[in-house]
């Protein structure tokens, strides 16, 4: 090692260094300048001096021809095509996959050569139809192994042998007709095999930790669990946890309210169905009587008159659950079928108790309704004006025929939550027409404009719609205006039950 005459300045990583080629510096100087000190390699000290490694390192990274010898791999003599016969299909996108190995394998027991010999001789004694297939054999063995593992996890130590009767439970889950005739015989085979290996699992297993003392030095023990890190207990953390618990409790309470409310709704529904049925039966009787007595009037009393009107007052009152005084989550007016099913089932168990409670609940709610039947959904009473207002002039509405309703139509009808209303949203108006377009008597196409009113409500104003040929009906404001009727027609044309509460409100213009 050369002794240093100069002491360097310390090299900082931020120092700008000139970059030279070797020919730009005096070669004799360069030789003496290069740092010959030992360089940390990052290799374990015991191995750093290894013969082959040093041979290469001495070339200072330029000895590409030298190699460290390793035991060379060979081509396998097994037939790859037989073992890996399954063809893989190429995907065009990157693969996304989350199944585990166990899920990909299926039956976890794999027959050994010993099993195969046994099964062969076993099947020899039987008619071809009564033979046991390899797959079923493995399924049975898997049940035995699994049950043994669960019932006697320390079988290797205490030598318990799980009895056949205990295995039955697992066997019953298999295809009984195929399995049961053989199970008892296979059990004997399993038992002898188990005993041959000291009552250990038949498949070789990794060694996991058993006793802290003996395990530590055993190189076969692997994949120990790591100790869970201690979290420090602080006041802030306690407060946090308390808050979490409170919130959880509150949410559970809300959920309970929701269940009660929907239970109530279902009861009312059932009642309505009963009444409907009674009406139907009464009418049937009435009809019979009419025929018998020969009364000839129009059949108006046999059908529901004014279906629209009837629907309007009835449907909401029946379907709407009690006002959401306790409930934060807005309730959908038409309860989702799955939810309804679930609640019904759940409540049947506690029906009597609930009926009582519902009564009390109702009274409480009625009272609280008085005080706060007004729910302010916005954060500020007045909605802010958003930027430049959308184009206020009327634009011609172009009709387009959609093959399928656009995706937004199905996701849209959910009642907006307060959060949604806060956000500026501009749903794209899409006109859906059923059937063929109206006659083109009008020269001008219908026009519309969109504007945003208070509370961010979206208004669609229209003009120039063709007059419908439908019979006149009474309209809300009594006027027989053409456009009025047209708009009403639109309304019912377009509205399914879901869309009644959509934020798109239609209002006659002009």
């Amino acid at each position, binding site marked *: 090692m050369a002794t240093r005459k100069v002491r360097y300045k310390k090299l900082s990583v931020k120092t700008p260094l000139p970059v030279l080629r070797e020919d730009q510096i005096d070669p004799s100087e360069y030789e003496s300048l290069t740092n010959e000190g030992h360089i940390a390699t990052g*290799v374990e000290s015991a*191995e750093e001096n290894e013969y082959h490694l040093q041979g290469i390192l001495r070339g*200072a990274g330029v000895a590409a021809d030298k190699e*460290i010898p390793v*035991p060379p791999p*060979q081509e396998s003599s097994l037939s790859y095509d037989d073992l890996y016969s399954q063809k893989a299909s190429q995907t065009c996108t990157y693969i996304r996959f989350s199944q585990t*190995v166990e899920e990909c*394998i299926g039956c976890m027991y794999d027959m050994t050569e010993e099993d195969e010999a046994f099964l062969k001789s076993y099947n020899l004694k039987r008619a071809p139809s009564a033979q046991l297939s390899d797959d079923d054999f493995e399924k049975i063995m898997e049940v035995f192994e699994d049950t043994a593992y669960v019932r006697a996890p320390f079988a290797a130590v205490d030598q318990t042998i799980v009895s056949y009767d205990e295995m039955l439970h697992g066997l019953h889950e298999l295809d009984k007709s195929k399995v049961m005739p053989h199970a008892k015989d296979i059990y004997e085979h399993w038992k002898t095999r188990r005993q041959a290996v000291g009552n250990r699992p038949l498949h070789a297993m990794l060694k996991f930790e058993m006793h802290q003392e003996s395990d*530590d030095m055993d190189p076969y023990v692997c*994949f120990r669990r790591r100790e869970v890190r201690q979290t420090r207990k602080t006041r802030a953390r306690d407060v946090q946890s308390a808050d979490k618990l409170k919130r959880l409790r509150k949410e559970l309470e809300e959920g309970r309210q929701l269940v009660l409310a929907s239970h109530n709704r279902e009861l009312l529904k059932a009642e309505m169905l009963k009444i409907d049925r009674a009406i139907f039966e009464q009418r049937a009787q009435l009809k019979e009587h009419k025929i018998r007595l020969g009364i000839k009037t129009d059949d108006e009393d046999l059908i529901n008159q004014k279906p629209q009107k009837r629907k309007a007052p009835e449907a909401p009152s029946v379907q709407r659950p009690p006002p959401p005084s306790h409930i934060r989550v807005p309730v959908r007016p038409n309860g989702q079928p799955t939810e309804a099913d679930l609640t019904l089932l759940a409540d049947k168990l506690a029906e009597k108790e609930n009926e009582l409670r519902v009564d009390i609940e109702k009274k409480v709610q009625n009272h609280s309704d008085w005080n706060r039947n007004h729910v302010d959904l916005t954060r500020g009473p007045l909605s802010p004006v958003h930027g430049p207002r959308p184009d206020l002039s009327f634009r011609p509405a172009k009709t387009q025929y959609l093959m399928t309703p656009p995706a937004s139509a199905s996701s849209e009808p959910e009642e907006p939550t307060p959060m949604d209303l806060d956000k500026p949203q501009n749903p794209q108006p899409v006109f859906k027409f059923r059937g063929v377009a109206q006659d083109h008597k009008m020269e001008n196409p219908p026009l519309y404009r969109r504007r945003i009113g208070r509370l961010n409500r979206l208004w669609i104003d229209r003009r120039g719609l063709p007059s419908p040929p439908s019979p006149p009906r009474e309209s809300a404001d009594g006027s027989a205006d053409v456009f009025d009727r047209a708009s009403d027609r639109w309304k019912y044309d377009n509205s399914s039950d879901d869309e009644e509460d959509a934020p798109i409100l239609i209002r006659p213009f002009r």
Partner: protein
Amino acid sequence: MSGGGANGEAAVGSDGPRQKGKATPDTLKVGCIAWVIKDGEPRRAEILSIKETKSGRQFYCNFDNFNKRLDEWVPVARIDFEKDVEWPNPDKDKQKENKSKKSSSVPKKSQPSKKAQKKVAVSKREQSVASEEQTPHPWTEFVESQTPKTAGAGEDLDSKVNASLEIGGTPGVGPDEMELDEDEIPADAAKKQREERAPSFSREDEIEKLRTSGSMTQNPAEISRIRNISKVEFGRHVLFPWYFSPYPEAFSQEDQIFICEFCLSYYGDLKSFVRHRNKCTLQHPPGNEIYRDDFVSFFEIDGRRQRTWCRNLCLLSKMFLDHKTLYYDVDPFLFYVMTTRDDRGCHLIGYFSKEKESTDGYNVACILTLPQYQRKGYGRLLIQFSYELSKIEGKLGSPEKPLSDLGLLSYRQYWSENIVDYLLTFSEKEEKCTIEGIASYLAMTTQDVEHTLQALRMQVYHKGEHKIVIPDKLIKQREKSKLKQKRLIDADRIQWKPPVFTASSRTWGW
């Protein structure tokens, strides 16, 4: 120290002078050091195990200064009984015992405060690079310099060991000082370091390190030293393992084991393996593909979600990685697996594992190209990919130490090629560059950059100024390797976001 090469200091059996004498095949026992023919040359070799085979007695030899992967079973004929055999020291075991006992008591004794303890751990980690200075058996010096081997000297020795251990336990040398050391390194400093640090590397410390840092590397002295599996059928290839791997103990009796190429399940029995192949539906690593070009694909696999697969992968790779430890489970790691595609699926080429959260800023824990794919440039792709991920994360990364010999060479090659390429752009423009600049451009740590510059003798101190000089032979070599048209990772094809883990997943063991 770079001089300690081929025939340098003996690594095998350097724990003090040994008794020498003639031996016969029958008297030769485990622990003896004999001269054995390896590749036509006589070499010192330690006998690690003896077995009787049909063709006679065989000895498992570890050759002096050869990597363990070249250990082998040799017949009597290859052992030179003309030369003296070195007998194992009877009190060697006792020493070892003492050592581990003492070191276990040290952490308890020196427990001034939690903070100080933490400091110890940190500085220990930082030392890991520098600790390569150690010789394998650091207590040699005491033995050689002071004590002739007598029974009475034993106690004296113990107290010395103890004393030096306590030095090792104190926070000692900080990282700043370290850098200085490297500049003026010299043998003295190295010796000092050796004395101070070496003994602190005990089993307890190591396990503590595993617990706290989630490391996947292990102290070589404690790994079972004898290969337990001789032959592995894997896909189209037969592999000959290099090191011990904790597969089920029963497998060490098998001539060969079978490993499924896709789910990596292991079988000692051919029939079981064939049956398994009938059922296994996996055709690619069970995770999400995050990179694909026309040559390779990368999959990201979470150790916690795919525990079986990742354990299998670790067992497989342990056969080829000496310093990998399977002491703890795979939960805190992500595995990035490189595959080639063909009509049967995605075949495993290699992988690297990465801590979900590395306190030491490592971007690779273990890295392996399977032997049948080695020397084909795949290792470079793995390394490049690990740095591409670091670039996306916006972090500087470095592989966890210790590196293996092959790992060091691969990394050095990758580092030097990329640094030279980058520096050439500076030398053309005649601009200055900083080490930090190189580091952030390549997502390498500044230590690794400095290390590479020094190893390639590019960093010089000339006329009161640090400079970088690019040697001509490196430029030439780079031009040559560029002609070979190496494959590269195309960073644009990576579809990956750094996975985010919450504090609670950290607390509850990932």
